[in-house]
């Protein structure tokens, strides 16, 4: 999971969460 936090310009913040297939693969490996 990647997390990118940015200012919105009016004092607020916005956070973009993104995921890639590696997240899922890592998960599967750890469950095996």
């Amino acid at each position: 999971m990647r997390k990118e936090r940015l200012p919105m310009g009016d004092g607020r913040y916005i956070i973009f969460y993104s995921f890639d297939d590696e997240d899922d693969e890592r998960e599967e490996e750890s469950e095996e």
Partner: protein
Amino acid sequence: MSQLRWDPLLQEWVTYAPQRQERTFLPPAEWCPLCPTKPGGFPTEVPRASYEIVVFENRFPSYTLDAPVPDEVGSELTPTAPGRGICEVVLYSANHNTTLAQMEERRIRQLVEVWADRYQELGALDVVKYVFIFENKGEAIGVTLHHPHGQIYAYPFIPSRPARELRAAQAYRETHPGQCLHCSLLSQEQRDGRRMVVEGEHFAAFVPFFAHFPYEMHIYAKRCAPSIMHLERAERQDLAHVLKQVLVSYDALWNMSLPYMMVMHQAPTDEEDYEGVAHFHVEFYPPNRTREKLKYLAGSETGAGAFIVDVMPEEAVAQLRAAHERAKASSTEGASNAFQG
């Protein structure tokens, strides 16, 4: 700006946030402020052409970190306090025309990670005593934006309902040393079996014996984890699985996208120790008592705090189990989006 006023009769804070009166109310889909900003289009809250999951501070918050100390309107009997906290919006998807129930389990699993991250980050703030993760779905609940989203309120106090639960759990632990009230309730439901709807490896969904709403369901962690942050990887995966099963069952109940309130109860984030007292769980309160009729919180419920429920939990669960079976069959047939619109 927000201010808190203490109700000494009910022993709880009431929050006043008059700035929320101006919030956006049911805009047409093409003017949705939660959609991505399209090239050449009007600027929404999300300044990108696409996204997976986004969290941002609510433009019309009930709590802010800079809320001022209220003017001298309080007294020793009725004190006031600044409405300091944070209100976040969680966008589940860039797709305007979907719901949590229609999302793949993989996306719900990602959402569990985001919820856990928000609990940890917001709960670490000194001012925040309780991180409340919830979703209001449907106009029947008062939703003002249809884009699939939830909210997080980081309160400067422990709200009265979870506080009552925690006091009950603490009292139970004192009379039943080493035991957790929620674990005991789940064990009782599992032994009885009549009100169970979905049984995962790490989570279970059931209609509680004492449901306050006709089709209320609770999802309990099988292990006594105090919060979503404390869940291990396999538990998070199973939470996503059981959540998905509950959501599709609700939509299959009357073949409609069922409105609901979804709330998460977990450990407060003050300095106290809640091990064995707080037990992470999710509660769903759909407002419908039939496909067409709503359950209103009227005189008895609001004025007396005494819920009158039109459907016996054992009858509700029979309908929900049948709906779950229909949803599973529908999913097997590749018609998982049968309830769109």
